[in-house]
């Protein structure tokens, strides 16, 4: 699958994967592919950042290598680890066979046969097909030492293993980095990337996403769901519902066999949309009823 040659082709690529992208995101993705730069996606949780990488990988028919970040992420879980049990067995066997040459043994047990590849090495190591899409998810959860290490990888696309030497990507992977902005990522990383702020979708796009991802929802219900979530996002909440929540809610309502919103159903299922007790408390039955009435009177504003 060749890389898209224009922004329109990139948009079509996302489209074909069932990912309804805004043109702005498609432009950033197109440039990331074209200029061979990492794509840095930042935005609230649940707006489809991870999905972007998945759509890109399936659209380009590349493998997706995912690295989930967390505090204290180290080389052993991010890059590589030696398979110690196998190495020890190998040493014991060599000892039992007798006549071991120390140098040869040392050479033998530090070969790729005993190497466990973790995501970063997996993405860089040579492979038969094309370079994979490397998704570095929620980089804001990792700590600064890992960020510094990542900077090195992104500059050289190379990993050095003391016992083996440098492993370099013949073709650099397509890198997508996401952040929920629970802290600011260092400028040095962002400078190397193409930055895109992923916002909540507008009503038109969100409706399109619900239609695509939750086809079992009747059209009228889908419209009400989208109008309701859009109205919720206008309120002052700790955490506005993302697209992921909208889709969950649509599926929940379908599972409950609802064809239209009513205050009672909203009150019963609001936990699918809002995940903070304060937010749930703010949407009292009265507020929910008013919102439902408004949504049903005005319809969706596209």
């Amino acid at each position, binding site marked *: 699958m060749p890389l898209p040659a224009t922004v329109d082709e990139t948009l079509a690529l996302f489209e074909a994967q069932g990912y309804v992208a805004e043109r702005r995101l498609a432009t950033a993705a197109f440039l990331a592919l074209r200029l*061979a730069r990492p794509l840095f996606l930042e935005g609230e949780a649940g707006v489809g950042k991870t999905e972007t990488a998945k759509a890109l990988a399936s659209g380009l028919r590349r493998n997706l290598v995912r690295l989930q970040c967390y505090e204290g992420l180290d080389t052993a879980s991010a890059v590589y680890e*030696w398979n110690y049990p196998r190495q020890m067995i190998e040493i014991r066997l060599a000892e039992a066979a007798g006549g071991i040459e120390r140098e040869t*043994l040392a050479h033998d047990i530090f070969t790729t046969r005993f190497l466990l590849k973790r995501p970063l090495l997996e993405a860089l190591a040579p492979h038969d097909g094309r370079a994979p899409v490397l998704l570095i998810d929620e980089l804001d959860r990792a700590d600064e030492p890992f960020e510094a290490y990542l900077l090195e990888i992104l500059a050289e696309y190379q990993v050095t293993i003391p016992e083996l030497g440098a492993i370099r990507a013949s073709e650099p992977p397509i890198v997508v980095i996401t952040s929920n902005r629970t802290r600011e990522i260092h400028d040095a990383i962002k400078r190397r990337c193409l930055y895109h702020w992923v916002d909540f979708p507008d009503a038109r796009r969100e409706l399109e996403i619900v239609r695509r991802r939750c086809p079992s929802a009747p059209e009228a219900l889908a419209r009400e769901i989208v109008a309701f979530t859009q109205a919720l996002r206008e309120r002052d909440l700790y955490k506005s519902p993302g697209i992921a929540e909208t889709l969950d809610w649509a599926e929940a309502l379908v599972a409950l066999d609802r064809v239209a919103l009513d205050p009672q159903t909203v009150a019963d299922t609001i936990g699918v949309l809002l995940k903070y007790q*304060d937010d749930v408390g703010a949407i009292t039955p009265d507020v929910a009823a008013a919102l439902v009435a408004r949504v049903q009177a005005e319809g969706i504003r596209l």
Partner: protein
Amino acid sequence: MIGDAGFSTRLPKGRLPENVVHFVRALRACGLPLGPAKAIDAIAAVAAVGVTNKADFRDALAATLVSKHEHLAVFEQAFELFWRNPRLLEKLVASLLPRVHGRTGHEERGPELAARVAQALLPPRAMRDTGDTDEVELDAAFTFSSREILQQKDFATMTAAELAEARDAIARLRLPLPAWPVRRSRAARRGEAVDLRATLRGMMGAAGAAAPLAWRRRERRPPPLVVLCDISGSMDRYARMLLHFLHAITNDRHRVHVLLFGTRLTPITRHLRHRDVDVALARVAGAVSDWAGGTRIGACLAEFNRRWSRRLLAQNAVVLLISDGLDADAGEGLAFEAERLAKSCRRLVWLNPLLRYEGFEAKPAGIRALLPWVDDFRAVHNLDSLRALAVALAAEPGPRSPGRARHRRSAMHDFRRPRA
């Protein structure tokens, strides 16, 4: 990926690259941190998407030149102005420089242009500084039109003796938070887990003989520190000393964030990062507009909880709340926000200068609302109390007890006696 490194040689001909460079320069003047390499990226990006579609053209520039959500609004305003008429923006920026950066430059703006400058460039600036998109227009109007009448504190009025005392004592002050074990580990003589890699290496050397085990131990790091400091009128007497203190701890280590509050919240970490305390405090003075005014603790904590807590408290932060607890809103909504704050951080320490008075009692509504939720309540009114604070923070706190509120009430008796 595409294999041709020849982008720089295939740049579009004509005036476009030149204009992009001008645009980058204009953005830089607006405060975006853009190096020369960014201009090259931008030209390559523009070459890749072409110039047939204005939206694509804008998005391509945005993807290369913007690296923070806050900068996006500045970029969009500048884009609209610049690509309609490049000259206009340059003129605007040039005419604004002396005002915004305090530099002297060519003064050729007419009154009519100045008004447009305000309209075009100040809203995004205000937005960037407060990180708050909701109040932009109101704030911008306020900052610009009544800049002179705002009560901005001049730090230069500090006496030499005061400065010397504060500098000497406070600059050497450190705030040692107890380091907390993290997932990262490193080799250690006596550790918690066997370092298999090092052990195996040792076995290679020992060849056949029993090799000693190598060990690893978990690393420890101090948690992030977030300081919320009250700068309202009633705190005025302490604010100078406290700012020196905040400067010292901000520059001492990583992961310290400082926000000031009175009637609204102002993040000042960036300003305090300047090594020179005088420059840093001058910048803080420039950034704060509600100096020595009223206090709305509840509203400010609410704003912090909403806009900042997820960004600053994510990695188990310790929060220092410096305030006298005298609230203009009479503690309205404060208990709720204090509870939320206490529950989103590892430890909430309240520093109160009023605590030095003998017979201090938690009468004011604000104090009563806050008290049940703080883990530690300490005086902060002189150098001694700051030193005592450092010692207290260094001590490993016990686990939070579920009956924190009850525990606090009994502790209230201790506060009647003055502390060192």
